[in-house]
């Protein structure tokens, strides 16, 4: 029974883990006080994942955090498939998403309401979704109720029914949700940015699909997608929290041991991001949405894959820009009051992911924010980061990582992300050293070589009349597409002919 919490100071949340750092003492003036200095830090104890591969190829990873070690009597579990939206056929974008959404909507032995009833009676819920490179079902439950809850999770992954009635119901829900989501300038700008960056290659489409592609997906497509990718040797089960590893392995064996390995190989995937990136031509694109309450301003450019040797250099570089006290928020929010929050996200994927810096601002200041995003990116390669700035940014990063491990669901998510990318699970315990090892010189070099503004596009969704003139002064080649003429299925993003039959009223 908690009150509804409203209006945070910041939408960003970052956190903890002990860091040795002393801030410069403020000079003492008459009657002025300086903050008391910190005591000696205590080191965190990070959990150690253990794992097994079952004979059918299912990899099972367990991270113990029992009540004896101060944990709550809860367990989180995630079963993920190593493919998601990147394997959607180009004319059927949203297939992975619809397949995942339908898992919980009926199995061979349970109807959709029975699944919901059964899992919620135990106090939990199943969250099934597809993302880039993976599809997953997540669960957090009281540890005393793990056995029946995980049995339901196993059932929905292994025996989904994909009944026509449920497919139609989900399809209609998705279409309605999309009609709301795409009215948000921020969501629309992100969808446009994916096309701008990845064109027609697999990461270019909307993960949910568009109204046109969602309507095209058939039951056969879904059944085939499930049969192709949902197989034990293409799956990983991660269990974390209040359970002994030995018990977790036994439970996994019981629920997944007889999951048959599909004959044949798992299809190889070519996301072609690299190919898209070589063809990538920077654009300055405005989607004119006259009814927008704010302009969403994005800078988008190629980032890097998760397994890139520059990964930690990229992560620290991004931390200089992003976070509450990062440069973008300093310049755009704190100094100028232009936005509630500015940030950048370096989303690494199995292949090259996007780098996106963004802020929402009143329509009149859309162009000013766009040039600030550009100039802050440029500054990273123009001049080295001072250590008095860099050290706190590293601390923020390490603290944020520590906090992400605080809950069982967060812990399972971090371990799953490593497993998805075939990285050593022990990396959890080297995170601090990896971050601390990055120098100011590394950042400048990395930013110059791989985060330059020359390969960056600007996307603004907003009321163009308020900012177009000033935008054109900075960028001569501005393209403008009216919201009504936008086609997210096309790499040009423009509707071809005058066909507006698929438009919403």
């Amino acid at each position, binding site marked *: *029974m*908690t009150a*509804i919490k*409203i*209006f*945070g*100071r910041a939408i960003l949340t*970052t*956190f*903890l883990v002990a*860091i040795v750092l002393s*801030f410069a003492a*403020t000079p003492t003036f008459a009657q002025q*006080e300086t*903050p008391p*200095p*910190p005591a000696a830090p*205590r080191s*965190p104890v990070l959990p150690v994942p253990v794992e097994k591969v079952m004979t059918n190829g299912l990899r099972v990873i367990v991270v113990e955090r029992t009540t004896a070690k101060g*944990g*709550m*009597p809860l367990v989180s579990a995630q079963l993920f498939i190593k493919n998601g939206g990147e394997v959607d056929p180009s004319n059927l974008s949203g297939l992975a998403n619809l397949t995942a959404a339908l898992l*919980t909507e009926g199995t061979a032995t349970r109807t*959709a309401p029975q699944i*919901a*009833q059964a899992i*919620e*009676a135990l*106090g939990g819920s199943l969250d099934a979704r597809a993302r880039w490179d993976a599809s997953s079902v997540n669960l*957090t439950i*009281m*540890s*005393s*109720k*793990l*056995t*029946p809850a995980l049995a339901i999770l196993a059932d929905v992954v292994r025996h989904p029914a994909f009944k026509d009635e449920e497919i139609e119901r989900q399809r*209609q829900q998705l279409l*309605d949700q999309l009609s*709301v989501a795409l*009215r948000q*300038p921020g969501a629309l700008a992100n969808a446009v940015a994916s096309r701008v960056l990845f064109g027609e290659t697999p990461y270019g489409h909307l993960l949910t699909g568009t109204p046109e592609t969602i309507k095209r997906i058939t039951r056969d497509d879904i059944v085939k997608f499930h049969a192709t990718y949902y197989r034990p040797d293409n799956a990983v089960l991660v269990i974390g929290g209040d*359970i002994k590893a030995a*018990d977790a392995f*036994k439970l996994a064996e*019981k629920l997944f041991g007889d999951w048959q390995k599909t004959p044949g190989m798992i299809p190889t995937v070519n996301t072609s991001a690299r190919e898209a990136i070589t063809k990538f031509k920077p654009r300055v694109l405005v989607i004119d949405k006259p009814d927008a*309450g*704010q302009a969403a301003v994005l800078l988008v450019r190629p980032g890097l894959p998760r397994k890139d040797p520059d990964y930690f250099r990229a992560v620290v570089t991004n931390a200089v820009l992003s976070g509450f006290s990062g440069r973008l928020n300093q310049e755009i929010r704190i*100094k100028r009051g232009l*936005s509630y929050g500015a940030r950048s996200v370096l989303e690494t994927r199995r292949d090259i992911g996007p780098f996106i810096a963004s802020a*929402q601002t*009143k329509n009149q200041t859309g162009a000013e924010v766009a040039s600030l995003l550009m100039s802050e990116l440029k500054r990273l390669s123009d001049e080295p980061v001072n250590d008095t700035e860099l050290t*706190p940014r590293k*601390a*923020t990063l*390490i603290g944020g990582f*520590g906090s992400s491990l*605080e*809950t069982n669901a967060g812990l399972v998510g971090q371990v799953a992300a490593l497993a998805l990318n075939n990285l050593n699970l022990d990396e959890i315990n080297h995170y601090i050293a990896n971050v601390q090892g990055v120098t100011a010189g590394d950042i400048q070099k990395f930013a110059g070589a791989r985060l330059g503004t020359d390969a960056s596009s600007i996307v603004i969704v907003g009321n163009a009349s308020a900012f177009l003139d000033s935008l054109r002064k900075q960028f001569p080649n501005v393209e403008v597409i009216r919201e009504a003429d936008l086609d997210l299925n096309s790499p040009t993003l423009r509707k071809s002919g005058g066909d507006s039959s698929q438009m919403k*009223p």
Partner: protein
Amino acid sequence: MRRLHGMPLILFVIFLLSGHALVPTVSAQTSVPRLNFKDRTLSNGLRVISAEDHSSPTVAINVWYHVGSKDDPEGRSGFAHLFEHIMFKSTKNMKSEMMDRLTEDVGGMNNAFTADDMTVYYEVIPSNYLETLIWAESDRLATLNVNEDNFKSERAVVEEEFRQSYATPPYGKLRLLTEQKSFTVHPYRRPGIGSIEELEAASLDDVRAFHNTYYRPDNATLIIVGDFDQKQLDAWVDKYFARIPKPSAPIPRITAKEPERTSEKRYTEYGTNVPLPAITLTYLAPPEASDDAFALTVADAVLSNGTSSRLYQSLVYNQQLAQTATSVLDLREDPALFLFRVILASGKKPEDAERSVLAEIKRMQDEPVTAAELDKAKNLLVTAQLRERETNNGKAQALGNAAVLLKDPNRVNTDIERLQKVTAADVQRVMRKYFSDTNRVVIYYLPQSMKPAASAANMNEKKQATDDKAGARR
């Protein structure tokens, strides 16, 4: 070191032979581990609640000020929230944003939120910085000192927050309308985010007056949860907080009483950028501290917690009238709201959605909920509590809510038992008591395209067109 937290939990694990493997199975109820804490009040009125937990080398600090949006000065709606932002600016001893230097820069975090009844500032930090942050929190309580430039730039940030959270999302304006139309007398009728005009009217003098009036030790509760030594903590709190004087003036309190509703009120509003119609129904509910809050909490869970809940099953799954259908028990210190929010599915009529919500309410009034539903609701609520308490900050917020709004921090331990005792008859009783036809406000929030044109002929034409389109899309 003493270990106060982590009490024995009732967890019986039975092994049974099943298939070819020995596996642990259910039985058993899991209870929420007891949260032990120390509660003391300094002579200047500051209440200090602390709970030691050494499972990670971090500590969460909360300062709950018993002042919220309902205390916004006249003509200054949104002020309490704007003031919350200003608390991160300069003090006599700290430069602007120094709270970020002391938290974020050392691997911690900070944030704050403003609600109707309180304003909460919080930090999570590596535990060796605890003394530093106790000093910093005491400093901004005692010596806030903001200049005009800082004030104006932060006010601009809050205006962008208004645009981002309310002016831009398709149903943002409906959230403002819900507050405005649900209360007639009580200041809860003014949305806490305020309006651009009233934010623009705020001045630095308002900031000073608000700080003097409400930011005082006897209006604050300090909560510390995590890795600390009790004796050491008490000494630091005494050193930095006890020196702040308690003002002699009384703290102003809202005395406005929201009258009972005597007849249903209906409103229809239109918005641009609204793809599908939405409806909101609100009922006045009792304050959070009321005994009926327990049964209402269970009723809320039966109605809309999860996809097996009654509203989801009826409106979203079976009838496919809605894309979302939820109830919200928005508990407050003074009369609260029990809300129903529906965003329609395409081609469906708001009248049908309203009728279905009312039918579900009536069903709750006519027949007791089943034993299985009652049990399910309680399991969902217990799991949510356990999840809240996975973190030190979650525990601190639970303690703050109990101490400040419920007036008894030990309710973090006793409420769960009272929730478990709620019966089907209790749920039926509160459904009958609060969900009368005369206690209802209904808001239809519709796409601009549905707005009737001036003449009746036009109106009919337009309606026809809308119906056709809706039919075609199905």
